[in-house]
């Protein structure tokens, strides 16, 4: 593949990534948000495979495979399992209206592109629009976490945010060293595990959503 084709594919994938992010923000049911974040992880894996073919960097194949297995299949499956297990009655519970969150999201995307454009010549050295897309995804993940009151939605936001970092790492540097990427994914799995246990534990003792507890103040 010639560099321009790669650039076009990565740009297209970036656009799709932003689209899945919008789906997560606009989702009114938790299961929709989980599907969207799974699709997003799948796109990251595809981006990894494309870059692996283009650069001949075999580590990227491993990273793409692990991303596909863990973030596109296993973690969403665990989240779905928790949703069924908790028998979630309350769905997304936004702190501010979803339409307002979407407006904020647009502002964040514009800001991310503006910030990257200010870098000038440096940006030319970096694959296409990967940097602004990565920044936007990372920040939008935080936005989801800040504006949703349920633990599971906050976890979806966290995964989306980390997808943004992985995408940037792939596109900007042909991936971090393999050992580091594996370590990061391991941390994500462990964190998800601990969070899931906490969510289930609170639900079993006080029948409340852990993210909704607000007794600690001042």
């Amino acid at each position, binding site marked *: 593949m010639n560099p321009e084709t790669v650039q076009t594919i990565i740009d297209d994938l970036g656009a799709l990534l932003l689209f899945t992010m919008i789906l997560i923000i606009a989702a009114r049911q938790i299961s929709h948000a989980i599907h969207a974040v799974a699709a997003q992880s799948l796109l990251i894996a595809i981006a990894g495979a494309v870059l692996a073919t283009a650069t001949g960097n075999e580590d990227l194949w491993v990273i793409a495979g692990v991303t596909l297995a863990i973030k596109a299949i296993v973690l969403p499956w665990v989240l779905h399992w928790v949703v069924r297990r908790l028998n979630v009655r309350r769905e997304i519970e936004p702190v501010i209206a979803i339409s307002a969150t979407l407006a904020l999201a647009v502002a964040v995307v514009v800001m991310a592109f503006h*910030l990257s454009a*200010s*870098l*000038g010549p*440096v940006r030319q*050295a*970096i694959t296409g629009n990967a940097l602004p897309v*990565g*920044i936007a995804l*990372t920040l939008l*993940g*935080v936005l989801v*976490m800040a504006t949703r009151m349920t*633990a599971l939605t*906050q976890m979806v*936001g*966290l995964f989306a*945010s*980390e997808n*943004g*970092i992985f995408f*940037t*790492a792939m596109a*900007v*540097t*042909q991936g*971090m*060293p393999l*050992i*580091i990427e594996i*370590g*990061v994914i*391991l*941390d994500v799995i*462990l*964190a998800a595990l*601990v*969070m899931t246990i*906490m969510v289930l*534990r*609170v639900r079993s*003792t*006080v029948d*409340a959503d*852990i*993210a909704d*507890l*607000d*007794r*600690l103040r*001042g």
Partner: protein
Amino acid sequence: MARTLLWVLPLIPTITALLMLTTRARRILSAIDVGSSAVLFALTLVLAREVATGGPQALGVLRVDDLGLVFLLLLVVLTLAVSIYTVGWLRQAVEVGNMKAEHLRSYFALMHAFVATIVVTVLADNLGVLWIAMEGTTITSAVLIGYHGHQHGLEAAWKYIIVTTIGISFGLFGTVLVYAAATGVMGGAGAMNWSAIMKIAPMLDPGIVRIGFVFVMVGYGTKAGLAPMHLWLPDAHSQAPTPVSALLSGILIKCALLAIIRFQAIAAAACGPAFPAEVLLVFGLISIVVATPFILVQQDIKRLLGYSSIEHVGIIALGLGFSGSVGTYGALLHVVNHGVTKALAFFAAGTAIARYGSRDIHVIRGLFAVAPIGATLLMLAALSLAAVAPFSIFVSELTVLRAGIGRGHWVAIAIFLVMVVVIFAGLLHHVGAMVFGEPTAAAGRQAEAWSPLFGMLMLAAMIVLFGLTIPASFGGLLQRATEVVVG
């Protein structure tokens, strides 16, 4: 020898953590705990001696230099004190049912896993490994914060794991950007190693490093408890078991500062020292100002100490922001002094809480009448935290102040001084009311146990010593660590 120690040091707490799972007896668990911490302490002293004579040592992704050594020494002093304190604290906590005897082994295993991740954080040369270890500290300590298993503990643990995980995602993003800048100059191999990046730092693209540093500052700043990203800190510090609170405040938030210092050095070389210094100055001042009102109105002794940590982290950031050799030296000294003092404060508060069965400042009254030694130690810690001479924190705050005057940051100094005076009054008002006066009906009359006292006296001796004079060997180490940062 020194290279062997580099991989042996993280291995000791890891093996100890596994060993803890083999027994349920409290006495044996405590013995392993103290023994392992003592071994870690002794080996770190050996390593310090090797580095003092042979310079920095590297082994793969791990590396020890004078800067890391300052944090490593603080860590091993605190873990030893925590282990000794835990012996008596645990006996009491099991008796009143705060800790369940059958779950103790998982508590100790998690504690040592937590220490292992901190050791790797301090020794990491590879910035990716630094991040992975830092997230490791979040995961292990989150479980420890919610360890009591009640609703409030779990709420604090959830807030902690969500806020710091998302925070240090930003740190990873910043790391990726700096790595991208470094690969542009030197190619992929070794471009994530801090020591390698420092060699080529002046050639890095300033634009990308600047954005990277801001992400790192917000990211690791969250973990360090800098305002306005501090929201998790008071909850986590107040809900965690006391030995965990001491480690969180004493060393964990300092490790995040170590990460910030590493990136500050890179950013200072790539885009001039003024930019990272200004960012640190702003976050430092915000933290000091935000913490002050909460210290004044606080009812919960452990939350009070949590907010005080935000203030002191702010002072460290301020010292780094004043930069130059005086500011950096003052900041590093403050890292050590605050770590030791805050651990003592949490210990003393923990024994008082156990005696009165409450964390409420209005319930803990007349401590001196029922527990004179514990009350004296609590007062000593509070005096040092309020920067009263001749205790250790007074010396480091004075050094930070001197750096600010030398640089002519008059506005920052004015804000700093006003807040320190207000906090002085608030802190001593709260602690004075707890220590003096008539004991309330809730006060337990039992004699003071030796084990918590011994752990506390060890730290108190350091506070007094560092207030009077800094030992020459340690002063030399701090000086060399300062040179690592400012070049």
